[in-house]
């Protein structure tokens, strides 16, 4: 469960966040929608305790990332569109590296690597170095890394950017499994179809503020517009930040 209330942040004279508030519930996939520069990245980096907020409150399972970032980070899986693989490490070495950074002991780590390998069908690339991996293989390895330490909360920053159909399906399946498992998933995205297909809840932010939160249907009803895309445009007042 991730709760943020009236969070503000400015860089010099620029107000990146001007009072964002929302709740992302366990067992829900929550989409974070917003045009470029709306403050999505700032928000995600604040949730893992990288950036300090100027005001407001943030609680990740009741813990403030500003006060205890290490505890919060241990409960978070963080996936970005670049996946962050190391070319010269094998998949197993890559997973071990992040497992150790997440304070997992060797026995638990070995067990867990076996589990995610089976879950994501990584068997054939487990001992291979990441150099030359296809985009699909890359996201699978990155997903394995994200899930390795059994985080209760997942932050996905445009995870589907540049994915082919097969990889996108793999991602969608993983999301469904996490939701069924009772995890809290926040996904920043530009892809409306993804929101309609995978998300239970939508948060729209623009200009550093939350302009709407609700199910995709409720947003359409509220704006009186049938398609989510058009509803989004009406809510933020711009077409920027949409991909189909």
């Amino acid at each position, binding site marked *: 469960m991730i709760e943020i209330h009236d969070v503000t942040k400015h860089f010099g004279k620029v107000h990146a966040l001007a009072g964002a508030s929302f709740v992302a519930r366990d067992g829900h996939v929550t989409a974070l929608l917003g045009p470029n520069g709306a403050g999505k990245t700032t928000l995600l980096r604040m949730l893992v305790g990288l950036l300090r907020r100027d005001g407001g409150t943030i609680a990740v399972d009741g813990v403030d990332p500003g006060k205890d970032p290490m505890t919060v980070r*241990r409960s978070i899986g963080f996936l970005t569109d670049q996946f962050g693989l190391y070319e010269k490490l094998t998949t197993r070495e890559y997973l071990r590296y992040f497992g150790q950074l997440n304070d997992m002991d060797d026995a638990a780590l070995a067990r867990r690597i076996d589990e995610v390998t089976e879950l994501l069908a990584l068997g054939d690339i487990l001992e291979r170095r990441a150099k030359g991996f296809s985009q699909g293989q890359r996201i699978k390895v990155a997903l394995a890394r994200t899930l390795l330490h059994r985080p209760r909360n997942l932050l996905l920053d445009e995870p589907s950017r540049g994915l082919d159909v097969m990889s996108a399906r793999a991602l969608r399946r993983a999301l469904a499994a996490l939701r069924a498992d009772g995890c809290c998933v926040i996904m920043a995205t530009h892809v409306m179809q993804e929101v309609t297909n995978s998300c239970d809840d939508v948060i729209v932010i623009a200009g550093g503020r939350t302009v709407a939160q609700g199910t995709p249907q409720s947003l359409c009803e509220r704006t009186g517009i049938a398609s989510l895309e058009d509803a989004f445009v009406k809510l933020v007042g711009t077409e920027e930040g949409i991909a189909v």
Partner: protein
Amino acid sequence: MSGRAKFVVVFVKELRETLRDKRALGMVLLFVLMYPMLVGGVLQQQISRALKPEKEGIELTVIGAARAPTLMTQLKQKNVNIVDAGPMTEEAITALLRTQKTAAVLRLSDTYGDDYRSMRPARVELWYDSAADSGRKVGDVEQVLRSYSRTIAGARLLAHGVSPATLYPVQVQKYDTGTSASRSASVIGTMLGMFFIPAFFFCLSTAVDSTAGERERRSLEVLLAQPAHTRDLVLGKWLAASCVSIVGLTLELCIAHAVLKYLPLEEIGMSWRLSWLDLLLVCATSLTLPLFAAAFEIALSINARTFKEAQTTASFAIMLPIVPVIVVPMLNLNTAAWMYLVPVLSHQTLLREMAKGQAVGVLPFVLTFGASLLLALLCVAFTQRRMQSDRYLMSI
């Protein structure tokens, strides 16, 4: 808890990546071998030049030698080997000089004997190739001709009742205090400093790749979101890069030591009186130089967005510690305590003093070790602060 400190986890991973980077390892190997070999080669050349007998005979081709037997005797006495030649054209002389078989060609004019006897200036032509490396020999021949001419003039004046001393209102006596040792001192001083420069190259690839490279590939964002303190990340990366450089520098110094011990340096007035124990001490004192080199490069790379940008910046910055190594020996300064506070210059000065075989004392070792360590820690502190700043975290 795994019981493993986080910085060790990062250290092991960065080192593993470096060991798999063939280009980085190739560069380390190149510098490990290249510097000692280069310095060894240059010194060897100086030694063989110094060992060449100072006064080997000068080959002089003379046209019309029979016209001036006294002059020929004079030349022979001054260690000039005379090769008698028949009449030659100008082209033939030029061609002969180009072969460098003779230092110069002396042509006596046909009327030499008559002119000499009737006390008119007797013409002698000295042909030489100033582009060839025989300037000193030509000078020697000229010297003989001049002194011969002066002796004859003196004798003639004497015959007319005039003292030959009137010919020399000023008497010049030359003293050359230069020895081959003092000439090569500044060159060798610079060379010793050059041994330490590779410390900056050994770690370059690791330092740049683990910071700017990771940022460029966007894996830094994920790494920073892990439950590890920035301190541990910086520490691990710093120590990994330093480790590569420490191994490289130690190996290189050992090879350099072996090369310098092998060469007969006394022949060029230089000495290398270091024992292997002394070398061990130098290596131990130099441990902090790689620490500084890596910290310095990481501090620079952290601001770069790409590997290439960081590499360029760092390569330029490496010039900084090289400058004093080249400039200070040129200034011919006496060894002073401040020299032990400047990285690389301090190592150079220390090694030079030790090479003389004198007792150096403890202070230079402490200053050399401490100055680099202090700068390294400052660079690391800067990097850590920078990586925790909002501005940096928003730009990764």
